[in-house]
């Protein structure tokens, strides 16, 4: 059996014109946030238009790598540079998982505050304003220090180091999960109470709540690595967080088994703005993921038809 498939594969490479995709379904993974569901559904629907069979499988964002390595799962549409780097590197190192290129979306992560805090701390979004009004962000547990709600510990982010390096009077508290992060934001926003926290986009939060990212000195790799670079000559991390692409990754067997579909997946590109609008349609206007994706596909036929390789 194995010899046969090797022979077939050899034939296929010898006569690329004959290369045809397997009829087995490609398994795309679904996670639990709407943006990812939209990206994946969009990819899946385009693949279906191209005649490929598609199956959606629910899987955890990080735990899915176990399945991608063994070929139980095939394609993950959103691996964020900012949160998935470690898992990606580990998976690429095994040789069983490959990078399928950027999705076109850029992940932004930074300190964020609601617009009503502009009155309590004039000078924002410039980060230097925080030096004078950290107490405006204080809670009973942290007073007189301001409270900054960071992401889960696993997200990294070097916020403790940043606070130290930029000499901000803030205490860093870590939420355990991003649901907890946004629960606090929702709660504070309802009461118009002070809050400063880690927000990322593309996400529905920046479109639902009015507010801004704090403008730190821009990130550079040297700023993280070399204490001498940046505002504080004695400390590293004296700048904002890196921004980075959102990647597509796949099991290495995808390109052999579905050569055309693999190219279609590589061609997939979408912008932050387009994605932001679709996420808002789902999370804020209550549309279903399928409706939203279908609407986008109706309006952008020439865009997605150009991805398809047959």
């Amino acid at each position, binding site marked *: 059996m194995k010899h046969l498939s090797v022979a077939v594969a050899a034939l296929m490479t010898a006569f690329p014109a004959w290369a045809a995709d397997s009829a087995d379904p490609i398994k795309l993974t679904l996670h*639990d946030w709407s943006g990812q569901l939209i990206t994946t559904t969009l990819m899946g629907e385009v693949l279906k238009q191209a005649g490929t069979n598609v*199956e959606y499988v629910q899987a955890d964002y990080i*735990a899915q790598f176990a399945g991608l390595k063994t070929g139980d799962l095939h394609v993950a549409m959103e691996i964020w540079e900012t949160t998935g780097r*470690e*898992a990606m590197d580990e998976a690429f190192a095994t040789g069983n998982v490959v990078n399928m290129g950027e999705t076109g979306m850029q992940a932004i992560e930074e300190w964020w505050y609601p617009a009503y805090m502009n009155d309590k701390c004039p000078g924002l979004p410039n980060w230097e304003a925080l030096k004078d009004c950290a107490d405006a962000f204080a809670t009973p*547990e942290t007073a007189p220090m301001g409270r900054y709600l960071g992401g889960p510990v696993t997200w990294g982010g070097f916020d403790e180091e940043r606070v130290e390096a930029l000499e901000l009077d803030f205490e860093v*508290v870590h939420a355990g*999960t991003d649901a907890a992060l946004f629960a*606090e934001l929702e709660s504070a926003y*309802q009461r118009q109470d002070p809050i400063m926290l880690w927000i990322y986009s593309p996400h529905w939060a920046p479109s639902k709540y009015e507010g801004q990212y704090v403008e730190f000195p821009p990130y550079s790799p040297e700023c993280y690595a070399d204490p001498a670079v940046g505002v504080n000559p004695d400390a590293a991390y004296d700048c904002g967080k890196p921004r980075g692409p959102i990647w597509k990754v796949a099991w290495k067997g995808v390109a052999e088994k579905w050569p055309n579909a693999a190219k279609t997946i590589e061609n997939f590109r979408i912008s932050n703005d387009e994605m932001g609008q679709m996420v808002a349609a789902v999370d804020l206007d209550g549309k279903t993921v399928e409706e939203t994706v279908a609407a986008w596909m109706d309006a952008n036929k020439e865009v997605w038809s150009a991805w398809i390789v047959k």
Partner: protein
Amino acid sequence: MMRARGATFWFGLFALTWALSAFSFQLSKAWDARWLLKYPKAWELPLEGAIKDALNWLVEDAHFGLFTFRDLTRAISALVEVPYQILRDLLIEGFSTGIGDSAVQILPSLSWIAVIACAAAIGHYARDWKLAALVGGCFLYLAVFGQWESAMITLASVLVAVPIGAVGGLFLGIAAWRAPWFERLLRPFLDLMQTVPVFAYLVPILILFGFGPVAALVATVIYAMPPMVRITVVALKGVPEEVLEAGRMAGCTRRQLMWKVLVPSATPSLMVGVNQVIMLTLNMVIIASMIGAGGLGFDVLGALRRLDIGGGIEAGLAIVVMAIALDRASQAFAERSQRARLTGNVLQRHPWTTTVFVVIVATLFLGQVFPGVQTYPRDLTVTTGPFWGEAMKWINVNFFDTFEAIKVVILNWLLLPVKKFFGGIPWAWGIAAMALIAWKVGGWRLGLLAALLTAFIAATGLWPKAMVTVYLCGVSVLIATVVGIPLGIWAAERPGAGRVILGLMDTLQTLPSFVYLIPVVMLFRVGDFSAMVAVVLYALAPAVRYAAHGIRSVPEQLIEAGVMAGCTRAQLLWRIKLPMAAPQLLLGLNQTIMLALSMLVITALVGTRDLGQEVYIALAKAQPGPGIVAGLSVAFIAIIADRIFNALAEGQKRRLGL
């Protein structure tokens, strides 16, 4: 005399521990002994690497000659997938051939009307019309509230996991009953299966069983099976000797004795085990959905990611409703007595089977013409979602400051002092103190066990995290007990209030904790306090239930004797009922601790810094080694607590002459 010595021992131990905890820092400075505070890195066991290597070997290299270990697990997984897929097709997806665009449907799934009719029929078969109405009503709720599709996916996995758990547990239990050595061998494994947090072994399971619903089913079965094994052993041991004797006299073979005599006479107790398996399976719905089970658990998670509190509550309540239906039906089966055989022809003997069959066939054909018969019309679904969101907002805006004030008081006067106390205990003294406590309560064997297990935790370098776990768990259990036992007593003394209270407790326990985690964070912010509130909510149930059960089962004669002796109500409670119920109260406390520990892993999601967080981080980074080490540490804390409280309850029973 004994009592006084006992009191001196406990007081001395506490005073010494307190002193060491308060002055450990100064001591380590004075003696220049940093190892007092921090377990030396050089002495740490290289366990994480060893576990990683062992797992790699298991996954990559282990084989039995012809096939590898992974082939075996994959074969099991393929085997389990068959009934699961059939159930899914039957309940929701419909049978079809081919894939993707070339798929052709052969037969649609059961219509919602047919499923409700089946459920009601099972309810009637198990007991009566009332149960039929309840079970049917529960399923109707799922349809009306728009949860049907997800609920059927969840139901399919429950219908696969429960039989595997129940039958597997029954066989293991029988084997343990037959061979005492096997029971001794099995016990530590059962303890670990119940106490190692599921997050800890999720990654290896995914690798071995493949991605998707089957891996979730396997994790569910591991978690839900132990009570069945335990109850089987107890139930078989509880079969009266006379019954066995009668069986032997009748010339039964060993097999006949088991299946015709022992198992049938133990059936009511065995059904309690099945009931437990069902409940624990439903508890796992959320975690299972994280690794591909889908269904209601996925809806809860998705709703919370959108901060759709109402959506989360509705999907969560759907799980509760399903639990109620399955729980009541399985309990009715446990109590069902054999009824006389009906006479007449096939139709007369099986009125329900016939009706259900007719409904299935009728809706099958009608469904082709009227889609509403096949699938519950979307327009007719009801939602309470916006109400919950608004209610939460109203509470948040109006009462946040009150909650904040209460929180600050409890934080300053309870949480922080206790945290400081546990955090300061030097690890070496911690091991010694644990051993002393266990020795005092349960003899030198227990003392040795406690010392070894505590030493393991220290040796993995997780001592500080373990102390945070003990502190959070301790405070939560304290509050749960202080609130729960009076509630339980109230429930026992006033049956009317009891029904409401116990019903509420059942709901709290089956409602996925994720549903209330988010409102708790909104009101109390991220931190230890939120974690504590969530743990108390979850762990309250056993404290209440065991207290109520303990008070209710005080022998009537004793109470009458008390009344005759002229006791007041208060005296009756304090002098007779509470002392007699003490063993039950201790067992309730034990269960409260177990639930609190299992919940701590979930509260890692709101940002605690304990062992639960360690397990969760390991999962998030897909590192099986550290996850299993931290998971074992949680399990060992649970096992020590379990043994100590069981020994206490046994001692109390002996003193009371029960």
